[in-house]
């Protein structure tokens, strides 16, 4: 049987996610500013998009490596 991994019990995940969460809202830029605009997107929106991208990457990592709860073989045997 593989080792059980439960995302909620892994505090490192939550530190990363909460940090990204906090920076996914543009509170840390001067109100009303939008220059420079790069490829039609205000600078602050690019940063916010970057943070969102980082959240997606982190989630992909967590889902792949930090979640292992069910012993699938057991369920399959149960159903048969």
């Amino acid at each position, binding site marked *: 049987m593989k080792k059980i991994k439960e*995302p909620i019990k892994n505090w490192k995940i939550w530190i990363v996610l909460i940090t990204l969460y906090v920076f*996914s*809202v543009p509170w840390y830029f001067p109100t009303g*500013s939008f220059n420079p605009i790069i490829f*039609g*997107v205000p600078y*602050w929106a690019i940063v916010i998009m970057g943070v969102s991208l980082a959240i997606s990457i982190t*989630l992909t990592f967590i*889902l792949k490596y930090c979640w292992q*709860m069910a012993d699938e073989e057991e369920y399959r045997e149960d159903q048969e």
Partner: protein
Amino acid sequence: MKLAFSGTSGIVIMLAYGFLMLAIGIITYLKNKGIHQSNKEFYLGGGKIGVFVLFFTFFATQYSGNTIVGYAPTAYRMGFFWLQSITFFILIVIGYLLFAPRLYVLSKKYNFITPSDFMEQRFKNKGVTILASLLMLYGLCNYLLEQIVAIGQGVSGLTGGTVPYQAAVLFFVTIMVIYGWLGGMRSVAYTDTMQGIALLFGVIILLIGSIIYFGGLKSATEYTAVVSPEKLGVPDFNGVVSWFSMLILVTIGAAIYPHAIQRIYAAGSELSLKRSLTWMAWAPFITSGFVFIIGIIGIQAFPGLTEGESEQLVGMMANHIASQNGFFYWAMILLFGGIIAAIVSTADSVLLTLSSVISKDIYGRYLNKEASDEKQILVGKVTGVILIIGLLIMAWYPPATLYRIFILKFELLIQVAPAFILGLYWKNMHSKAVFIGMAVGTVVASYMAFTGLKPFGIASGLWGLFINTILCVLLSFLFKQTQEERVRVEKVLS
């Protein structure tokens, strides 16, 4: 103005999509005749749904036609402030991470069908189970009502009024009820897949058309910088608070949707569940992300629209693009079908969950404990149809804008979150504390929603949730669990 969709093509595609959904329902029915004898088979597709279909059925719970028809106008009105729509859809996956891993395992162990099945197993308290079931029932009805209105508005808006609102609503609701009745979760999930693909195709083609015929994001932003620079600027303090509040509300609210929870139960394996959630973490870039760009392009394409006029933005843009050439004409017709299909796909998921709550939580658990699964399913289906008729009567004359009613359903559904999220991990959580927290949270959220109170710009649902959580925690320390109860809970959660 001659409207591109006012001809027969719009009606033809609507009929074609409608009959395609019906065909999927009938084929599913013919292939799976035994499903009407078992709650698990009917409401959860036997709990064997694979990654591809599971992804699209999760997709359908989050993305609806409103993601295009409602969000593009919001981006038009709010500008880059609406960038939050990309983030909040990603964050929903964090919401799932809070409870789905453990809930999935428990659901297979105890054969959960409805969200309240977990409540019953965990708390063994009539009050908690009934209150949670009623909250979900009410929230789901409201949700369904919103989708029904969206079907009518979508069709009549996109055909420039050629197809009347009421006719569209009747046509699609009837089809949805029939295929849901015939094939249960399997029909719903398979049609969700077809509907999701149609929506994705529609969004991509609308974006391409918008860029070609209205100019790209760059020229739209340059134009906006001159005409309404506030749509580009960093939001002020209140804007930031409301942004945070929206993120938290959606993160927890959308993952805890009763129909989303049922999809966790329906997953064929943990691997399928993990993979489909991974896809969900990336989908927002091409769903709400593309729609956001379309809305911003709209600022330049159709400047100066009032709030009411802007609600028709997607229809206006699609009409213009469709009038350019044959390819885009048919592409826009398909987009139109995709938008409607997506609304139907969200509505069918909600209707099925609604029926399951009635079948299992209300009828099977309290009204007729001896009822067979077959009878429970029949009662759920019939009551579902009666509720739909009631909602149709309410939806006959549609309310004004979509965004406001969207916010309302969250406020009540989110009140079951502490029972799920804390209840799954915290063994000392007391059932009485859960009941009081849920009840007070609901009253506070409803009162604030009705009176329009929004202290610090934070949504009423979140205030309710905050008070609910505090009460759950404090009262759990106050009411001591009996030794017997503690042993029972430990056994359930082990």
